């Protein structure tokens, strides 16, 4: 049985479970574990071990199912940072001291009430004098407390002016910004990014030492193209290039993330330029991106389309008299939880009745996702066509200010709900409860997951007519009823309106497609990857073999 390696080099603090690529990896590993023809080793930085363990546990795979190699101990600098983060996130449990204090306070209040009762009801002057004597220290303390509070009040009154002076000082401004950035969003600070690069370089070297010492591993696979270090592995390598989306919307992305994203772009290009063999999710990315833009030889690229991304298992309730109704009720419950994650809508929990109908688009907000065109189409449908549905999105509107502005200017903040950072179950529930899923994206690495995610829970879907989708949705008649021109909001609006009015018909037509797509399980996908890795390792060893043969003295 051959052994293959999976190379991961995600940055610290990243929760793999929350990332699309992480979920893709989880599906891959779940199937890889059971593969009878190959074994996998995972190489990852020290800081990814825990996140990887959580990811595996989340999909019911024992962390011991894979051999994990790479440095074990995290750099001290990172440990200190994580300690600080843990401190900030600590659950504020009631300490024993506080509990004791509360008990004492209650007892004190009770005794005081008793003493007061005695004071006002006693008919003995001796007892009254005794009580007054007892109360004396408390009176002194009370007077002192009043004095302290008086001085505190003075300080509080003066504080705003002091604060303004402090804030105006340049030194304070400069360092407070730096401290805030490092503490809250380290990736946004150029200082931390620079320090991180140093740390990453050292970690990669250690990781590569471990990897290159493993002669038993026949070939290595990198599930993404962010890591040029991968190319320093002395064994056959397969790099997955999901897409190079920045090149598809250059102006849009130029305003996102600043130079940090430019640096990442550089890493992707370096990974591609130094790579040997690639895999993409679609023919489109193979030819348009790798062959045309990066001049990679077509023979060095394999295409492995996605498996069906099914969400039904996350929400399907069984064992009840009416499982459908129970599943529905469960989804409503998850949706209620998701509403609390709304950004930009006041009181989104008002919509938790389970009666609200909506259209759903699950995606982060990125320039290529074409959210603005969807918003234009929705605004028209709502205000001119009187389609009463809400539009539920999953991005953060503040990540692309144009989106937040459009929603505000068109007074859509109660109709467009941006439910950000959904759990997998919440996502599945949204899909299930939606009347229609929409995907207006202009460019994707493979056919958008929206298709199988929506159909797996019985929700019809309309999508942008883009090449990667047409690779999968090939029936011209079906294309006509479910695809729209993503550059034309009126066409998008018309398709959405038609789909809402003909939900059953659309779903019926799409079911046949889904049944066909659902046959392509993650097990199929993993087997295709294994076949490529096997081929790469075999051809390399035969090359080595032939080189050795050729080198024989004649």
């Amino acid at each position, binding site marked *: 049985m051959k052994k293959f390696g999976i190379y991961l080099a995600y940055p610290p603090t990243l929760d793999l479970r929350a990332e699309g690529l992480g979920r893709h990896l989880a599906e891959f590993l779940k199937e890889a574990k059971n593969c009878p023809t190959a074994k996998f080793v995972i190489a990852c930085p020290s800081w990814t071990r825990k996140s990887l363990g959580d990811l595996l546990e989340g*999909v019911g795979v024992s962390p011991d199912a894979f051999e994990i190699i790479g440095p074990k101990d995290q750099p001290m600098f990172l440990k200190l940072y994580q300690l600080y983060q843990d401190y900030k996130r600590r659950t504020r449990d009631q300490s024993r001291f506080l509990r004791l204090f509360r008990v004492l306070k209650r007892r004190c209040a009770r005794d005081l009430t008793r003493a007061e009762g005695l004071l006002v009801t006693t008919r003995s002057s001796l007892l009254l004098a005794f009580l007054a004597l007892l109360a004396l220290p408390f009176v002194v303390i009370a007077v002192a407390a009043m004095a302290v509070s008086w001085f505190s009040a003075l300080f509080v009154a003066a504080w705003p002016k002091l604060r303004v002076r402090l804030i105006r000082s340049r030194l304070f401004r400069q360092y407070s910004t730096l401290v805030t950035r490092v503490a809250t969003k380290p990736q946004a600070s150029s200082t931390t990014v620079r320090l991180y690069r140093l740390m990453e370089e050292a970690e990669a070297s250690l990781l590569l030492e471990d990897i290159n010492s493993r002669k038993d591993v026949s070939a290595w696979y990198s599930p993404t193209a962010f890591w040029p270090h991968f190319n320093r592995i002395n064994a056959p390598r397969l790099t997955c290039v999901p897409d190079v989306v920045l090149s598809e919307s250059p102006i849009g992305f130029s305003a996102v993330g600043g130079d940090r994203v430019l640096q990442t772009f550089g890493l992707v290009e370096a990974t591609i330029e130094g790579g040997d063999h690639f895999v993409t999710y679609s023919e489109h990315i193979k030819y348009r991106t790798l062959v045309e833009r990066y001049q990679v030889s077509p023979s060095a690229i394999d295409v492995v389309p996605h498996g069906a991304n099914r969400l039904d298992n996350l929400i399907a309730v069984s064992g009840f008299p009416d499982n459908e109704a129970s599943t529905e009720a469960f989804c409503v419950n998850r949706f209620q939880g998701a509403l609390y994650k709304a950004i930009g809508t006041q009181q989104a929990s008002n919509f938790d009745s389970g009666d609200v109908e909506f259209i759903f688009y699950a995606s982060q907000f990125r320039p290529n996702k074409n959210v603005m065109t969807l918003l234009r189409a929705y605004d028209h449908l709502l205000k001119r066509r009187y389609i009463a549905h809400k539009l539920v999105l999953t991005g953060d509107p503040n990540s692309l200010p144009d989106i937040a502005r459009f929603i505000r200017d068109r007074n859509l903040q109660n109709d467009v709900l941006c439910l950000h950072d959904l759990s997998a179950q919440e996502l599945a529930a949204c899909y299930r409860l939606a009347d229609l899923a929409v995907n207006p994206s202009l460019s994707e690495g493979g056919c958008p997951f929206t298709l199988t995610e929506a159909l797996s829970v019985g929700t019809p879907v309309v999508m942008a007519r883009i090449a990667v989708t047409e690779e999968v949705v090939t029936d011209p008649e079906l294309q006509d009823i479910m695809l729209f021109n993503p550059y034309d909001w009126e066409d998008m609006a018309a398709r959405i309106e038609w789909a809402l009015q003909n939900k059953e018909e659309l779903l019926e037509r799409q079911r046949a497609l889904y049944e066909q797509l659902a046959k392509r399980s993650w097990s199929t996908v993993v087997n295709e990857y294994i076949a490529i890795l096997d081929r790469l390792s075999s051809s390399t060893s035969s090359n080595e073999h032939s080189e050795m043969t050729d080198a024989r003295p004649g």
Partner: protein
Amino acid sequence: MTDRPLRVMWLLNHTTARKFEIPMLKRIGVQEIFLPKKYPADPALRSASVDWSEDEHLTIPKDDLAILNDADWYHNPGIEAWQIASRHFDVAFFILLKTDFLKSMSRHFKGAKIWRTYGLPNNSYHAILDLLAHREAPVWSSVASKNLWFGQAYAHLAAEEPHFIAKKAVLFPVGLADASVRDEWNGDDKRIFFICPDLAFNSYYENVYRRFRKTFGGLPYVVGGAQPISVSDSHVLGYLPSEQHRQNMRQLRVMYYHGTEPNHIHYHPFEAVRSGMPLVFMAGGLLDRLGGIDLPGRSKTPKEARQKVERILSGDRRLIDSIRQSQQRLLEPMKADACEADWRAGLGRVLGKLRESSPNISSANKPKKRIAVLLPAAYRGGSLRGAKLLARAIATGSRMGGEDIEVVFGHLDDPACYPKEAFEDLPASIKRRPYRWRTVSHDEAVRACAYAGLGGSLQYQTYQAPDDGISQFTDCDLWIVISDRLLSPPLPIRPYLLMIYDYLQRYQTTFDDDTNQKFVARAHAAEAVMVTTAFTASDARQFAGIPAKKIKKVPMLAPEFFANPARLEGDTDASFLWTTNLNPHKNHENAFKALRLYYEKYEGTLNCHVTGVDTGELLKRDARRLRGLRDICSSSAAMKQHLKIEGELPEERYQAQLGRAAFLWHPGRIDNGTFSVVEAAHLGVPALSSDYPAMREIDQQFALNLTWMDPDDPDDMAHQLKRMETNFERARRRLPSAEELAGQSVDRLAGAYWSVIKDYL
């Protein structure tokens, strides 16, 4: 109470509880028991089931039983089901999932109500009440608490509750149908048995399981309990048939019970004790109260629990035997014999109080029910007219329904806005009452609620009350507020309904979002929201998020117009009438563009007469959106020739003008519709209207056969004007007859209003 047999409704579906409590009720003398046949499809109710077996013992009419069986006893079963319940049953046990249930039960069920409480992990029942009523007013009112009991399963539960609940506590102890020890355990399977259901979705159990794995990591274990959503964990058994579950109880070596909540316990530790399986449990929980404080299986820390479990797994006979022998004590309080006296005394107390408050005693001098219809702002025009029609509909509808109801009409105390003449069309039986809104601080609101008998928390800092200088409308049993335009919440001492005509703010920016949130919050807090169109019903549900069950659609009430005797036969002028005002949604710009096209492109010949409030200013006022109209008009000779601005006309002149028009033109954008088209139909005049939902619904209800145009497309508007010019005679012949129009009178529609409103009295 009557001489019929004592009957109880046990409105729960919990299987294990039912197995004990139904026989217990029979044991203390209740032979007829109703059990609910429907329960929510919520996966959290995994222990629920339906039992039909008690139906055969019920001696109530089959038709009544069918209605009871069909009702939803967890939300709002409806007035009919409650009336049947009141007729046949003395007591109802219930659990509370929705406040609407408690409210409807309070209003309509005459028997005793026992809120069955089994204890909650880390929560009190008053907190649950506040949580359920978080958008509404407190639900524990003096009306609701009449014959309402806190039926606690453990004697200490009421200690966690405020006085208004604690004083209603009655003990109905929890028990087991069979609390005997079977002693069938052999423990051959050397694994821990841990019960932890709902792992895929319940964060409480997820945490419990996480802690369990932390405590017992490395030891062999299996996890029992139903998993309605599958979990990929090889330790998790999922749902098992009862025989297999029982086999696990026999064979697995030890059960660990995690619970440390003082008020809540699961059934499975008792199952383990019954089978003879050693139980290791955490101290501090309810088991301590049930006699477990010195049991050898009790562990003060997870470490201690692990040590005990390890000893049991390794076959420490002494520990196993000592646990098995001593733990049987936990079953003693669960036996029916131990519980019977409390059940008997509890039910006796409940029935005694019910007898004291039976209707025969309290119905003497019962005051007439009174409903207030409140206009919350200085509305005139359509809203005032609508409010008066609503007041009439309630008075008429209740009379037709055989109820003696008094309707009070409340309007702001502003004689300039509301002169006496404005109410001449209000029937004398409806008393008018001017009022002012009085701001009520939080402290005042707390006191007012206490005096009114309300228990629970108030969430707002400020409330408002309609102050009529008499009793602030507290003499009325229900307030019906016309519109949701209440910036502060009404003081929650009376239930209120809202009559909402539209949610135009969804389509036009009419006010800021903070204001919108306030109006929406008022609608959520209302008992129900009445609407007159399906479109507004849809917006109430979709835009405001009001649950569909709270939205009540009632027919539109149009003013009474008097039909033109010469309708359908009279002569017409060569003109059409455009009734409008200066509001932006009247779509003036497109209307002017359309008129120009009509005259210039389509060579239209009919004059256009413009009338309505402030229309004399249409071409004079210097508002930005009106300036363009002057340009359109001045640049078109045809427009100048045919457009006649009439301004606001007196009622009679307006009707005369309308009666002679070829048709009425309504080119406005979305609003809640205009009854001017209905008035036109009464006068035999057809109408060309913008196509939007409210107008479609007016068209449908009054069968007007309107002609339509697209208000966003001036060319289509012009084209339709031209078509009307040639076709208005045909359109006139398609108008409804006078008899058909009379079918939409207030008197005919009043019953529909009453059938909604009576539910809230």
